[in-house]
């Protein structure tokens, strides 16, 4: 642990917002700087390491046609040059210090993660605060990274049946909302994004008032807050335009799309419209997911893979998003079976639940599985930081990650049945049916 410097107090520019205790081991605190930067601390003294995550409240949702993919593209550019560090220095310093570094972009967020030995805390704050305000770009860097991003798109989408199908699903499930385009962007936009686009994006969204820093690990609170204040306290807030994101109209008709792909066997995706992450029905939808797909005894896994034996794999999940999103089902069929067989079974099982309330014991099983999965996601300092950062960014409050677990106890079999009847209906879904190309 970094030694406590005697006499240190919480700096005046940082105000405590709240704290939260979960069980006997977890105690979290949230702070805010005058410039709007939020900081969440989650101590873990078991190993002399820490995770430092910077979550920016920007994702592909904030893009528009013509610059789709810029949020992800910019994530790559954040590893380039700043006024204080030449290209490659950021990564070199952190890797030399034994750090694990990465970043990710999605619909609603972009985050930068580092896990480091405790002695590097000062360094990471210095480096991250620097690139929050001092990134510089030139055409050479932009074009070199453009090639990397285009190759990433070839890898994740153009040569991947999975990527191609998910792109098609979101493209058609969302006609107005910005979830319509892929996070990695259309290839034509990747090829045309320019320096001006990038710098405008950076100036607006990479600012303290649009970020949350999550720190988990073997660190002393006072030292952490002093360090954060000294490196981030003077960064000015930016003016962030009011989001101009179109509301997706209610889907009233099933959308069905067919694709021929370089696949070994048929595969089907079903995306049902569900509310935003903060909606009161989301924990119930998580239970529904568990009931149908979590574990070998779950209803649809068992029916599709074990009982009827038409599928090789069957999975599903609720995509937790800031705006209404999707409950996704993904089934890979065995050769000789077709997508419609899987869709019929899905419909049968949803109808069965709509007609018959599940047993309390079945629901209890799902709750236990969710509890196990919750603990399974909190193994390392990096796991913990990710979960906290995700909830703070998407839900607006990190405490929801713990509260959801407690809320499960209140959900009744009738609630689960009602959620199934409300959300898991054909008129709210988009279906992508992929079949192997004739040559495959």
């Amino acid at each position, binding site marked *: 642990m970094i030694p406590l410097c005697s006499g240190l107090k919480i700096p005046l520019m940082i105000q405590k917002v709240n704290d939260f205790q979960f069980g006997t081991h977890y105690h979290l605190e949230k702070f805010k700087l005058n410039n709007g930067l939020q900081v969440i601390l989650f101590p873990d003294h078991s190993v002399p390491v820490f995770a430092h995550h910077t979550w920016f409240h920007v994702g592909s949702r904030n893009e528009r046609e013509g610059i789709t993919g810029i949020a992800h593209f910019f994530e790559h550019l954040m590893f380039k040059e700043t006024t204080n560090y030449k290209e490659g220095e950021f990564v070199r310093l952190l890797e030399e210090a034994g750090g694990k570094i990465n970043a990710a972009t999605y619909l609603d967020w972009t985050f930068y993660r580092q896990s480091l*030995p405790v002695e590097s805390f000062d360094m990471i704050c210095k480096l991250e605060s620097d690139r929050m305000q001092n990134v510089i770009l030139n055409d050479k860097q932009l074009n*070199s990274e453009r090639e990397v991003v285009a190759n990433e798109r070839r890898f994740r989408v153009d040569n991947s049946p999975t990527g191609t199908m998910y792109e098609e699903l979101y493209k058609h499930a969302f006609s107005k909302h910005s979830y319509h385009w892929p996070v990695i962007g259309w290839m034509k936009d990747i090829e045309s994004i320019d320096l001006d686009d990038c710098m405008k994006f950076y100036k607006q969204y990479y600012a303290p008032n649009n970020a949350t820093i999550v720190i988990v690990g073997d660190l002393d609170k006072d030292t952490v807050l002093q360090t954060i204040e000294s490196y981030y306290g003077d960064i000015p807030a930016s003016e962030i335009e009011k989001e101009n994101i179109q509301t997706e109209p209610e889907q009233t008709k099933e959308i069905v799309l067919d694709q021929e792909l370089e696949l070994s066997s048929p595969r089907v995706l079903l995306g049902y419209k569900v509310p935003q992450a903060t909606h009161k029905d989301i924990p119930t939808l998580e239970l529904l997911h568990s009931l149908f797909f979590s574990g*070998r005894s779950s209803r649809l896994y068992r029916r599709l893979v074990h009982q009827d034996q038409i599928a090789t794999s069957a999975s599903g999940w609720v995509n937790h998003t800031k705006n209404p999103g999707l409950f996704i089902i993904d089934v890979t069929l065995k050769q000789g079976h077709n997508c419609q067989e899987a869709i019929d079974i899905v419909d049968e099982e949803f109808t069965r639940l709509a007609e018959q309330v599940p047993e309390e014991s079945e629901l209890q099983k799902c709750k236990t599985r969710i509890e196990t999965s919750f603990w399974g996601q909190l193994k390392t*300092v990096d796991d913990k930081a990710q979960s906290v950062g995700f909830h703070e960014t998407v839900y607006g409050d990190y405490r929801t990650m713990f509260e959801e677990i407690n809320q499960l106890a209140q959900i009744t079999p009738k609630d689960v049945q009602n959620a199934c009847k409300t959300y898991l209906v054909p008129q709210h879904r988009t279906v992508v049916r992929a079949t192997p190309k004739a040559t495959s």
Partner: protein
Amino acid sequence: MKIPTWQKFNQFETILVSKKDRPMVKFVLLFPFGADRDPVEKQGLTNIVGDLLLRGCASYTRTQLEDKLDELGASLNVFTGFHSVSIEGAILKRNFPELVRIVQEILSSPTFEEAELEHLRQETIAQLRMRLDDDQGLAKSAFNRQMYQDHTYAREVVGNAQTLNKITIDDVKKHFATYFTQNDVKIGLSGDVSNAMIDLCAMTITRCLPDTKVETLTMPAAVQCKGKTLVFVNKPDRSQTHFFIGHPTLPLTDQHAYDFLIFKTAFSGSLFQAKYMQEIRVKRGWSYGAYGSTDHRRWASMYYLYTFPKNDDTADAIATSLDLYQSAKNGSLLEKQDIDFAKHYLYKSFPFKIDTPGKILSQKIHHKLLGLPEDYIESFRHNVESVSADGISERIQDYFTDNDMVISVLGTKDQILSNIEEKIKPDHTIIVDYESLI
């Protein structure tokens, strides 16, 4: 976190890695045999036996067993490797005794029903077919086959459609009776655990498995490849390729293994600063990722480079990779500062090797299987520090070959094969259809 050592409990070797911040327990029962015992014509037999253990026993049908495990919030899986079978579970601490009781049931009285074997056979064949969608996996599979040729390591642990179709229920019963014994079983626990849990596991194995000896197996070392062999895996409509370049290398037990570890970290580790990543991605933008790795197995170790450029860049990317490889070998690629960088990284990132009890347990088991010393983890930092740049350059010729290597490329033949051949002039070219790899 303290690194525990293996302890003898009755006839079993056991290890306990304790951390109590989450109410979770992971356990591993490790059997000292694996797909290495499969008859050639029945490859996949050990894997089938392992999977069938979870498909019914005297007290539970498959369905009842799955219901029970989900009710407990438990995961229970059987993993088959070339030299081991491990039964692994994870569960909330409060339900641990119940999970051990279930493991006792499935080991004492597996039913091995004919119908379940047939289901499993068809499922496994269908899953093998799904591998056709994984371009990287197909390129690696072709690489392994060419590298290991007739050796066991050229096979798939899960077998293939032909061999799976030859496995009978009598084979399954006989295989189980022969190999699933108390002989040399190892027990590992991690998480919110106690010695009483080890006792419980040990008693369970004693109760449910016979105390019969299993013959120790030795194998020839894997063959050395000869010449520069290009294996081209042809798949239609690819706009991007995946390629592997590699050859056999030093085992982890070799006295110079740390020299090689540091050298390959500097040259092709999973670091942004590694030379290979810098040359392929950062300088040229040819691929999203470019790195090298080592597969260590009991009887062979293999080193390879991997990347995935677009078609137009593939021939140049392979040629550049080979040039980099040669420069690395003749000592002109890496400088002392690169070696020092790799040493710093490996030394300082060490805490992340031991930051969860599950990671420590996995490493202790892996090291045991490879025959590494008990203090491998504890002595890691010292061994890294002891390596000198001069020592590495003196021994570098031993780590790399001149021309004896395998290059496997997955792509669309008509678009790129002739370009590649022209650029790299392989000694042999072998063209395989991607569907033949399952």
